[in-house]
């Protein structure tokens, strides 16, 4: 007994130490994330698979010069400094932009970030003569940074980028362009397929393991330069599960902790089993984009407005089990660029019928139109049921819709070619149903209304041309005051809505389902999400 008492202090010291060691050994917090893609997006620097992929292998491993604020959910984010601490346009030559590169930032491989690294990355995607040029990465990002003409390193920490034309909205293009390590490319024998397994960026996560089509494991970068964005979880495992029902099953079974886009039918079961459903305003719209070329039935603004007034959007939201919000325009009404359109979009059947009557149509004398739609796919929501709903709704006011149903990949071809192309006009297709990302001024507005972007030069699909709009866009491109820009963008959106350029139906809410083990996940009002905000039990 005495010997036991003698040893007591040693035991009392050893016990907490053992507990601490044990806890330390098992302390790693892991979040398993079931993503809706069929494969892990590209890890070499510029993710493929669209805007939604940036949250997984883009802004986790890498940083852009100018970032998008994605760690807040209660208001739209804004542009914030990333690897550039500041940027300004040359007061004399408005095509020249100067970026001051953040000092003291290191890539995951230990090499330093310098102005030359930024130039090397620009060459990687814009100069096919450079040894590091990668056609695949280039294809991802070139369409997203169309304004860049030339670039150079002015000194060790200053980069100058010259745009093709004066473009005050140019900074909005830069969150898409990510900076990887030139040293790592050299270390990997200048082989991008090897860099894919051991990439090196400056981001808050490092890639620890990559099993193509099965998983990517990201671990916390404890020495990340932005101390406000140190990941709250040690390890995030991304698991591609393209089938929505399988994703939901994996969540219910505890194999994953977070899933994207749970199927609407499973929501009641998820809620009753204490799983959390997180949604937010999302820059997405599900519209019918009309052709305004001569001969199209949609050239008459009364018909376009009538179509917008004939849809009971709340019923569509109900059809989607609440996973959408009714659209009142191209943008959500909370957007700073929504403006004050005089045409109020809502469900007003008598007014819709009156407009159709003015245009000379009625259910007994219907207007016929053919719309090309996808059978499903990313961004298309519940394509077929929603389109059938629209078809029935428009029939009530005397618009008889016929659908040309194709696969999404094929729909993109029809979209890129424009309404005037033979593949559309030759088949009397006068409208296209394609979910649009509306994340920034270019993606949300200007690409659809600028007459310079009439297809095939861009995706102004329907050939919309409005001199007043073009003048506003010119003013916008030449004005560098953010507040004035916001006002002008609101003006652009107002005109779009007042012209009823499209039939806007609903906005997606980018739903995520979380297991009770997830304590925190901030869902930004964007396709860019910040995985550093995930906190586990």
């Amino acid at each position, binding site marked *: 007994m005495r010997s036991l008492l003698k040893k007591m202090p040693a035991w009392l010291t050893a016990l907490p130490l053992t507990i601490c060691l044990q806890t330390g050994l098992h302390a790693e917090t892991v979040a398993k994330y079931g993503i809706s893609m*069929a*494969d892990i997006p*590209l890890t070499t620097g510029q993710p*493929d698979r*669209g805007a939604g992929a940036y949250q997984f292998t883009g802004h986790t491993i890498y940083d852009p010069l100018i970032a998008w604020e994605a760690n807040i959910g209660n208001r739209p984010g804004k542009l914030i400094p990333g690897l550039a601490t500041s940027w300004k346009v040359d007061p004399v030559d408005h095509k020249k932009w100067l970026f001051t590169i953040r000092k003291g930032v290191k890539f995951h491989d230990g090499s330093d970030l310098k102005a030359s690294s930024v130039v090397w990355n620009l060459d990687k995607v814009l100069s*096919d003569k450079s040894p590091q040029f990668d*056609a*695949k990465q*280039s*294809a*991802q990002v*070139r*369409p*997203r940074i*169309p304004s860049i003409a030339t670039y150079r390193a002015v000194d060790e920490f200053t980069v100058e980028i010259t745009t093709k034309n004066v473009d005050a909205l140019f900074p909005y293009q830069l969150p898409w362009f990510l900076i990887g390590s030139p040293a790592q490319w050299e270390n990997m024998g200048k082989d*991008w*397929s090897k860099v*894919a397994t051991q990439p090196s960026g400056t981001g808050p996560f490092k890639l620890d393991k990559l*099993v*193509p*089509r*099965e*998983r990517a494991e990201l671990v916390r970068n404890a020495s990340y330069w932005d101390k406000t964005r140190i990941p709250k979880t040690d390890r995030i495992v991304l*698991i*591609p*599960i*393209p*089938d929505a*029902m*399988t994703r939901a*099953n*994996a969540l*219910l*079974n*505890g*194999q994953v902790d977070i899933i994207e886009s749970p199927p609407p039918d499973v929501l009641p079961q998820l809620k009753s089993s204490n799983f959390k459903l997180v949604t937010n305003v999302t820059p997405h719209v599900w519209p019918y984009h009309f052709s305004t070329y001569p001969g199209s039935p949609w050239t008459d603004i009364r018909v376009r407005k009538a179509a917008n007034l004939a849809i009971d959007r709340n019923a569509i939201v109900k059809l989607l089990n609440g996973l959408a919000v009714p659209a009142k325009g191209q943008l959500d009404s909370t957007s700073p660029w929504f403006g004050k359109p005089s045409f109020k979009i809502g469900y007003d059947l008598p007014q819709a019928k009156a407009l159709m009557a003015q245009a000379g149509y009625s259910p007994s004398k219907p207007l016929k139109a053919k719309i090309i739609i996808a059978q499903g796919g990313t961004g298309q929501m519940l394509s077929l049921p929603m389109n059938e709903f629209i078809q029935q709704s428009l029939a009530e006011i005397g618009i008889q819709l016929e659908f040309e149903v*194709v*696969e999404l*990949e*094929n729909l*993109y*071809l029809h*979209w*890129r070619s424009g309404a005037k192309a033979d593949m559309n006009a030759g088949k009397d297709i006068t409208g296209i149903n394609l979910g649009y990302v509306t994340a920034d001024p270019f993606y949300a507005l200007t*690409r659809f209304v600028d007459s310079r972007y009439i297809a*095939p*030069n*861009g*995706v102004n699909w329907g050939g919309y041309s409005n001199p007043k709009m073009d003048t506003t866009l010119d003013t916008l491109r030449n004005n560098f005051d953010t507040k004035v820009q916001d006002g002008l963008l609101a003006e652009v959106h107002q005109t779009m809505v007042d012209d009823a350029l499209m039939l806007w139906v609903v906005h997606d809410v980018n739903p995520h389902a979380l297991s009770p083990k997830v304590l925190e996940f901030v869902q930004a009002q964007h396709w860019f999400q910040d995985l550093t905000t995930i906190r586990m039990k």
Partner: protein
Amino acid sequence: MLSYILKRLLFALPIALSVTVVSFMLVYLAPGDPLNAIAPADAPADVIQALKSAYGLDKPVPVQYALWLWRALHGDLGTSISSGRAVLGEVLGAVSNTFMLAIVASLIGVCMGCMLGALAGYRRGSWIDKIATTLSVIGVSIPHYWLGLVLTIIFSITLGWLPAMGAGPGGSSDWVWDFEHLRFLVLPATTLCVIPMGIITRTVRALVADMLEQEFVTALRARGISSTAVFRHIAKNTAPTVLAVTGLQIGYLMGGSILVETVFAWPGTGFLLNTAIFQRDIPLLQGTLLVLCMIFVVLNLIVDIIQPLIDPRMGRA
């Protein structure tokens, strides 16, 4: 025997060549653009053209075929457009995952099918026959996508006994043959095995019932040979047909069930084909089809070679 094997090998060559033509050309019949897999939907025409050139898609189709075949003969199936990885590596990884699943499903399916079929054949018209026949009809006609979901709901969601998806806790790259990993095989293998089980049950039942009517069986019985020995004779006579059917079934399973592998997110050939089809990843699609067709050809060749070893009459024919 040697001439028989050589003859079979010679027959296999034109089949293999036809397979390469079909694998290559088939994918061009589907609408859509393979570059959608890598280029954003709004990529301008110059970006698309640069990519076409980078992937050799700007060349005439016969030229593309000749280049592809030449590389394939040298073991290079090209590079996946969507992932940038070597197609051969992608396909072999998927084939090994499907092989694992197919072997387990085949073992269950063949054993169950032979047992049920033999019982039903021996006891024609009895309740055993009716149960076996009902099970075989269900096995052949049940939608496997639905069966997979139902099994998941029961055994993964409600009871929580088995995982709902995946190929092991750490993915297929960390696969080991232990209990923790085998749990991941149970549901997909059970879902898949009902097809061969149903077909083999029907085949064996019909063969056994037919054999029992044969004069040699009556003669064997008249000589007082034990029923076990009679069964051995019947088994030997049914074996070549069962082997041929089993070979075909393993071939089908090696092709991977797109639906079953999608339901269980099993990273096999079906899952790979599904991805390749939706992404219009032409090199991956062509490579996967080619490898799967060649597996089918080789399996049939093996069956053709084994059959005369069991029944020498076939070799002589």
